[in-house]
């Protein structure tokens, strides 16, 4: 099973995402933003960072990178895609996921160990968890406030597409404490916190993040 990780100019957590794939026993493949080619991978991670410096709006410029064309097609065809932090922003800008991510309500960058509840353990990226399972993984963002209009939020809740929610503290002003959402089919997931930073006891606050990567490897193996 191969999982590709896209490097945009300004991607920062790409090497971490590749490492997380390897620790989860997947084959990690590095993808380049300028190639309109997914190199035959089975799933893709859009990693965290500051693509194009996060100038303009986070993810707004990366969304037009050449690799996004085949990626958008693949996403529509059901390929598992995970956008972490900046990757989540890219997916929203590309309209693969609803809503948008805006400046934190306290206007500061925040880095903390964040408690989350997995609200939907049936997406391609969360099947290793239990519904309602609580996990702690790092969160770090300056523009992580998830916003959408009420109708969209109601629909997301109604369809079980809120994948994860913040517990104990809403770190960025996200509407309804939303930390991650999925598309209708559940193959595309966007998540503001960073599971790839919680895959080793030595460097993470837990190993709770590993489940995102094992989920997709297992679901692909089953398919």
């Amino acid at each position, binding site marked *: 099973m191969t999982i590709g990780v896209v490097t945009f100019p300004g991607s920062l957590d790409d090497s971490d995402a590749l490492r997380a794939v390897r620790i989860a026993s997947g084959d990690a493949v590095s993808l380049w933003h300028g190639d309109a080619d997914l190199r035959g991978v089975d799933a893709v991670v859009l990693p965290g960072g500051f693509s194009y410096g996060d100038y303009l709006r986070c993810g*707004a410029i990366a969304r037009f990178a050449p690799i996004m064309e085949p990626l958008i097609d693949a996403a529509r065809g059901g390929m598992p895609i995970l956008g972490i932090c900046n990757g989540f922003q890219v997916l*929203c800008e590309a309209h693969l996921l609803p809503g948008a991510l*805006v*400046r*934190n*309500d306290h*206007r500061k960058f925040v880095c903390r160990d964040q408690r989350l509840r997995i609200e939907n353990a049936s997406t391609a990226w969360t099947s290793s968890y239990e519904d309602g399972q609580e996990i702690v993984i790092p969160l770090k963002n300056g523009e992580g*406030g998830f*916003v959408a209009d009420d109708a969209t939020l109601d629909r997301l809740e109604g369809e079980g597409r809120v994948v994860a929610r913040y517990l104990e503290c809403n770190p960025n*002003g996200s509407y309804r404490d939303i930390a991650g959402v999925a598309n209708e089919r559940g193959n595309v997931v966007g998540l503001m916190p960073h599971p790839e930073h919680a895959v080793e006891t030595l460097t993470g606050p837990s190993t709770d993040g590993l489940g995102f990567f094992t989920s997709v490897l297992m679901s692909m193996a089953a398919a």
Partner: protein
Amino acid sequence: MARVVVDVMLKPEILDPQGKAVHGALDRLGFEGVSSVRQGKRFEIELAGMATPEAVAEIEKAASTLLSNPVIEDFSLRVEP
């Protein structure tokens, strides 16, 4: 040579933490009588040529796809003399 200015503001229903913070700071500094502050972005785009209708239409397209995100923002555009 012409200049097109594009203003991008968050939609009224979206929380604007920066505007709110500026409002709070104005209050604390004793600037009274302000009822609300919103903060947005301003782009000054210099064209190499004239602001022909085609050129402006192009910028308008850029404004609605790249410079603003219609999910959360509105924009307005004007050609400066």
